[in-house]
């Protein structure tokens, strides 16, 4: 019980500063940047009076302290992240409408990454220093060397425009998520393959592998044990990557014209729709922390040493 209490405290110590930091940083950074939402709504021909009137209506004529207080108290006391200045609907509604797309891409990309990483790492480790190993160590690095948006554009040209197998973008069900997820997976794979390969090689040399093999355990079951022991560092890295993906889908959503959180964030920054930018940033911060906490939890559970204690 003290263990879980400690865990809770440790988690709170991580969550609270990060979330508070994100809230304050987005609030003040947004207001430091020149430009406001009223001019975006009214256009360039709007008179100064019209802009001032709309800003007053939006509450932007209030002192900064009052605005911060109304935002923070809304979040803390009512779980309310405010109302969009442009759409005039609750920010939470806008986020709820978009989050599915973003999380689907992240989930699909994570799955794709796993499906690529595990077989490739095994193949490389089992053929150490052979041709296969070299190919697997070099070819995926190309994915690392190319920016994700560029990989995305290549996938669009090949699979959507030329072959016509998949949609170029847009919200056409799961099919339209395949290419963006693939683009992310391709860029995530190289580092993970190398990490897992190195761990596999280390574990393959361990005494217990020799012992299990000598005991006549089938090769596949031996390898399962190897994977389990080698996976921990990769899993930590994978968790960090997923956290990174949540923020990183912004670019890929743009490339594939997916209407997810990234697109919402991008548009809201352009329009200076303060509550929405703050809301999305807050959501992402919470999601990232949640993923890292979950990863730690999982690593903890998988590590035989922590189970013993």
């Amino acid at each position, binding site marked *: 019980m003290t263990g879980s209490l400690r865990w809770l405290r440790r988690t709170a110590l991580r969550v609270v500063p990060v979330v508070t930091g994100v809230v304050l940083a987005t609030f003040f950074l947004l207001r430091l940047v020149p430009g406001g939402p009223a*001019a*975006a*709504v009214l256009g360039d*021909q709007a008179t100064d009076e*019209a802009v001032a009137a709309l800003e007053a209506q939006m509450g932007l004529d209030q002192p900064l302290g009052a605005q911060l207080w109304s935002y923070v108290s809304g979040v803390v006391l009512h779980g309310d992240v405010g109302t969009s200045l442009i759409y005039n609907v609750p920010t939470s509604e806008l986020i709820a409408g978009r989050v599915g797309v973003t999380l689907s891409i992240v989930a699909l990309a994570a799955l794709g990454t796993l499906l690529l990483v595990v077989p490739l790492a095994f193949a490389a480790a089992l053929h150490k220093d052979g041709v296969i190993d070299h190919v697997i160590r070099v070819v995926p690095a190309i994915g690392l060397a190319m920016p994700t948006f560029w990989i995305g554009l290549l996938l669009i040209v090949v699979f959507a*425009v030329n072959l016509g197998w998949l949609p170029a973008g*847009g919200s056409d069900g799961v099919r339209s998520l395949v290419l963006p997820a693939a683009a992310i997976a391709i860029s995530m794979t190289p580092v993970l393959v190398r990490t897992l390969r190195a761990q596999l090689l280390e574990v393959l040399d361990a005494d217990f592998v020799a012992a299990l093999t000598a005991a006549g355990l089938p090769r596949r079951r031996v390898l399962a044990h190897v994977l389990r022991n080698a996976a921990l560092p990769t899993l930590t890295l994978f968790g960090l990557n997923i956290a990174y993906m949540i923020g990183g889908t912004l670019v890929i959503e743009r490339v594939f014209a997916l209407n997810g959180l990234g697109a919402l964030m991008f548009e809201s920054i352009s329009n*200076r729709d303060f509550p929405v930018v703050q809301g999305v940033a807050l959501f992402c911060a919470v999601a990232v922390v949640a993923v890292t906490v979950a990863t730690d939890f999982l690593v903890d559970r998988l590590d035989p040493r922590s189970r013993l204690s």
Partner: protein
Amino acid sequence: MTLSTPRTPSTTIRRAGVAVLTAGVFVLAGCTASSSPLPGGSAAPTTTAPTPGGTLTFARTQSPTSLDLHTQITANNAFAIDKIFEPLLSFDAQGEIEPWLASEYSSSEDGLVWTFTLRPGVQFSTGDAVTPEDVVYSLNRHLEVGGPLPLHAPITSIEASGTDTVVITLSEAYTPFAAELAGFSNGILPAGLGGVDEETFFKDPVGTGPFVVDSWTEGGDISFTKNEHYWQDGKPYLDAVVYSLVQDDNQLVAQLQSGQVDVIDTVASANVATLESNASLTVSTTPSWVVEEVFFNTLDEHFADRDVRRAVSYALDREGIVAATSFGTAEVAGSVLPPSIPGYDASIDSLSYDVDAAKAAIAASAYPEGFTTTLLVASGNSLRAQEAQIIQAQLAEIGITVEIESIDLAAFRERFRAFDFSFMINSATSDVADPNGIVTFQADPAGGTNGYWTHYDNPEVTALIAQGRTLPDGADRTAVYSQIQAMIAADAPFIPLSYPSNIKAAQATVQGLTVLPNGSVRLQDTWLTR
């Protein structure tokens, strides 16, 4: 009219109208003013009978944020609003004013009393007949709200008369009134919003337009179904229209090429040739009300000097700039008015490219040795970036060293609104089919934006602008606008660079895509071949 930055969020500010020929079908080819070839099925003869039915997927770079016609101005909202609400008058693809919900209109000899006769049989999408009271309510609400596209006409009263007549009285003659009424923000809604509150009404609005909102996700797609009570016989042909949100130029092209969407709303000029070479697509290039311009802050220490501004005008090779940046889709500009606006005068001296004249003008200025200045542009617009670089190179020829400052659009707006710039590239868009709109905003100090953020103030020009508003249409009025255009060009508070086109691309199966000069599309005329 408006400074706007095409292809960037929330910027293109255009007044949309519903609009066009009540008689007959206007196919894509018919409204293509430029000579762009229309391969494939686009050349469908006008004799082909339109096929009813089908859903048109129309890709647009921004989703609507509000359908309240009185508080909105940007294209993302305007071109959804104009499918739902229609004004008394409208304008066609050539910008000609035409009767719309009013079948007839006239103004008294002195221009003070305007009488509108409602077209018989026009109904709202609920099936209720449109009455003069609805018109009175709609225009009064617009007067009350004001909004970004207010009624500028000096209206003293709007009165219903009998069962089908509305009489509007002005305190002084105002010739642009008909053009102003033809804007989307003067659409007609049911009196009292049909008894519901504003928020409810504008989520699912009731109008006379060809389409009604089917579903709408804020910040996402909006879909329309046909208005079964539409007053034009047999129209709209389409059962439904979906405005699909595609926020990227390359995606627009890719989704059109892969057949995911039927029409794309904007085409980057660099992409036109690629699309035109595709036989299953059509590209439409039509005149717009947009003028791409260099704007000077006439309070700036250097650009306050008229000779400096004239020198810049002479130093810019506009033909070169247009050739290098528009891929043949824009025309070289001379006047502050685009050719699509009545009164445009091509014959004025626009101080066009002449290096010797430029050198003479800078020598006569307070800065004969030249100076260093900063050109402000909004980032994320490759066209502007290119233009800025060419301008930088060309001004170096007359000793003006230009630094380019590229900042994001919202910051850009804040800067010019505060007159915190020396000169900038932006575009202006007329909201009305009348020369008064553009010249008022750009050159009348009382026009609301300080001469479009130039602080231009020439009392002679201001007097002429006032005269142009009251003179009845005819040779005298045209002469006044010629004079205004010539005087503005001579003072050079802004230098018109080019007249861009409205460029749309569609599947060859899309017929009757009438593109209006404000950039909107009349979808009641559109149909799909199978």
